[in-house]
């Protein structure tokens, strides 16, 4: 540029005029940017809402279960003769009692085929419900007791209006069965009641007897193992690498490896767990212990990376201040750096846990996909976890498992929301200004 243009005299108001001329363009750019952002958020929320509503719509009915009330005479003659009180109670002919109770309601049904259709209104688990009542209170023997027993899945689906049209294949109720149901309803012996079974039972082949509790406990034990291993190890590793480790080739290699591990597909960790924990260390298959160990391997890199960035975010002036008054490195970290980094570390940890909670692929590899009826009592018992349970149910042909799949997803989401809520709470609780 020549000197004339650079030393051009500035006329008053020139800057303002230029700024004003450019202003509409700047404003428009800003508005556009905001609109994009808003559109992205609204779009995301809409999709999320659709997803949630769909699951809620499909799944809410699983929280209710059709039950039928019978007056059952606990016939002492049908209680097995055995010296042992417990086997005597356990092996009584409860199905017979249930059949009698049902027969009393419909005395006109005498033909064999129709009797069978009548019995098909009830769940195969109904005798066990009676058994549990009697075992809990043997004094009931010899009395006639009113008892609400679970209806069969077809009845349940029919009552919930999910059985489809009467002329399709899936509609498996006969016309007289529908009549009987109407009569039961009239007599107030048929009701949809809160499905406690769903929240207290393990898995089952029969949809009406299956519950989420086994998988929830399995998830709990698995996450317990994961949390108690990965959080302390992850935080300790992050502190060591960030605050104490010398910067050299070795720590570089470690850092690169940790970053790479965080990106490894989770199923690979499952293979590793199968090879190391089960085949080599001979730990029990399908157990929450092995599941927890595998998920620990998977979440550890995430927690270390989150922890290190939380530590990096602590201003160095805080470290200098502490070192300056003569605190040791350990005191500096424990008294000043860690309290500031902890909210970030915990958030990272809980995000890692949430990921672990939703993980199924690596757990399939170590056998947590097995069909397990019993609710696990310890980390060594065979178990399954919520996402695997969802996968199993989604794969089942029975219609009644459809609503249960959605309900299980709701339970899983509730867990996730709970954990994220905890993360937010911890963040608020420990967050400090500096």
């Amino acid at each position, binding site marked *: 540029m020549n000197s004339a243009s650079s030393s051009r005299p500035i006329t008053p108001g020139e800057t303002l005029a230029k700024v004003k001329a450019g202003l509409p363009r700047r404003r428009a750019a800003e508005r556009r940017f905001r609109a994009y952002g808003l559109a992205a958020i609204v779009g995301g929320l809409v999709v999320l809402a659709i997803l949630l509503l769909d699951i809620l719509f499909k799944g809410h009915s699983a929280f209710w279960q059709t039950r039928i009330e019978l007056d059952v005479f606990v016939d002492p003659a049908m209680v097995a003769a055995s010296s042992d009180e417990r086997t005597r109670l356990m092996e009584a002919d409860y199905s017979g009692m249930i059949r009698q109770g049902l027969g009393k309601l419909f005395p006109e049904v005498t033909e064999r085929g129709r009797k069978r259709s009548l019995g098909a209104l009830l769940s195969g688990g109904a005798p066990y419900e009676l058994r549990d009542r009697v075992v809990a209170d043997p004094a009931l023997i010899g009395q006639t007791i009113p008892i609400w027993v679970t209806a069969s899945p077809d009845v349940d689906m029919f009552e919930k209006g999910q059985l489809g049209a009467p002329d399709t294949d899936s509609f498996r109720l006969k016309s007289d069965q529908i009549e009987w149901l109407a009569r039961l309803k009239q007599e107030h012996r048929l009701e949809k009641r809160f499905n406690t079974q769903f929240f207290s039972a393990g898995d089952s082949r029969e949809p009406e007897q299956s519950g989420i509790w086994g998988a929830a406990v399995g998830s709990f034990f698995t996450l317990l193992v994961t949390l108690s291993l990965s959080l302390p190890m992850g935080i300790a590793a992050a502190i060591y690498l960030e605050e104490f480790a010398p*910067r050299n080739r070795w720590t570089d290699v470690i850092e690169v490896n940790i970053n790479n591990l965080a990106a490894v597909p989770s199923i690979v960790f499952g293979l590793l767990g199968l090879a190391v924990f089960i085949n080599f260390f001979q730990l029990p298959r399908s157990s929450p212990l092995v599941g927890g160990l595998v998920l620990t391997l998977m979440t550890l890199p995430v927690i270390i990376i989150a922890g290190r960035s939380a530590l990096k975010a602590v201003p160095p002036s*805080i470290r200098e*201040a502490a*070192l*300056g*008054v003569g605190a040791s490195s350990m*005191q500096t970290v424990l008294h000043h750096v860690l309290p500031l980094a902890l909210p970030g570390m915990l958030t990272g940890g809980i995000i890692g846990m949430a990921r672990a909670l939703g993980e199924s692929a690596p757990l399939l590899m170590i056998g947590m996909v097995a069909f397990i009826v019993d609710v696990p009592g310890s980390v060594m018992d065979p178990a399954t976890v919520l996402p695997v349970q969802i996968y199993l149910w989604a794969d089942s042909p029975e219609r009644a498992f459809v609503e249960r799949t959605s309900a299980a997803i709701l339970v899983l989401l509730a867990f996730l929301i709970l954990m994220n809520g905890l993360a937010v709470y911890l963040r608020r609780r420990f967050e*400090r200004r500096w």
Partner: protein
Amino acid sequence: MNSLLELKTAMRDERTEVKPAKRLGTNVSFDRDYGDTVGEVTASNARMVCRDVNVFYGPKQAIHGVNLDIGRNEVIALIGPSGCGKSTFIRCLNRMNDTIVGCRVTGSIQLDGQDIYDPQMDVVPLRAQIGMVFQKPNPFPKSIYENVAYGPRIHGLTQNKAELEEVVENSLRRAGLWDEVKDSLDQPGTSLSGGQQQRLCIARTIAVNPEVILMDEPCSALDPIATARIEQLIDELRMQFTIAIVTHSMQQAARVSQRTAYFHLGKLIEVGETAQVFTNPRHQLTEDYITGRFG
């Protein structure tokens, strides 16, 4: 105050008549081993002795061969243009530069005859002995009380709570902050104003009772009243302690220090009695700086 007046007139005089460049270093009694520094780098009763100190930030050298003694019961002012390495040098004196990745210090720095860069040296007692006030106020994100009590507590300087409270009050009083915060000791230290924070940091440093205090521009964010309070504190502390203070204010250097060291581009250009350095600088660069021709 008298000396300050003299100084001011002297400075005014020098500003009016621009002297020709002069290099008196060769005429003055100074040991040739101590490089190019003009003036007396040694002190008769030295507490800290720095010899041929070089500091590197990675490949970049920030301090070039500095030799300097810091005497018992003296306040030495480090002056020089921005970026000349005053902070870098003062941070070497309590090994604060250890915390900077890629920072390397060569040469020897002794405290009472002991090399502080000796691998055997434990930095914890060293830093308890050599306190530091940083250029930017850096209170802990804890309460005001905790800020001051932290040092005495980790070093176990007090026997009980009452004693600790006394130390806290005393330190805050000496730093001229007590009256402003005595009712809000449980408020976070970070909620104070910049100048208050700096005084809090000073209180935190003196609470440990260090023998040497390094101050990096302690008054740059303070008003004249707080500055006067700190200067008075420095004067009190001098009776017991050794103080090195970095300052951009010549008046302050003149008021509080006995000796002054002038740094330029990482080199120690001139050091001498404060009055002499300000009224009669021997090096052209020093003269240019204090007469305000640059920096």
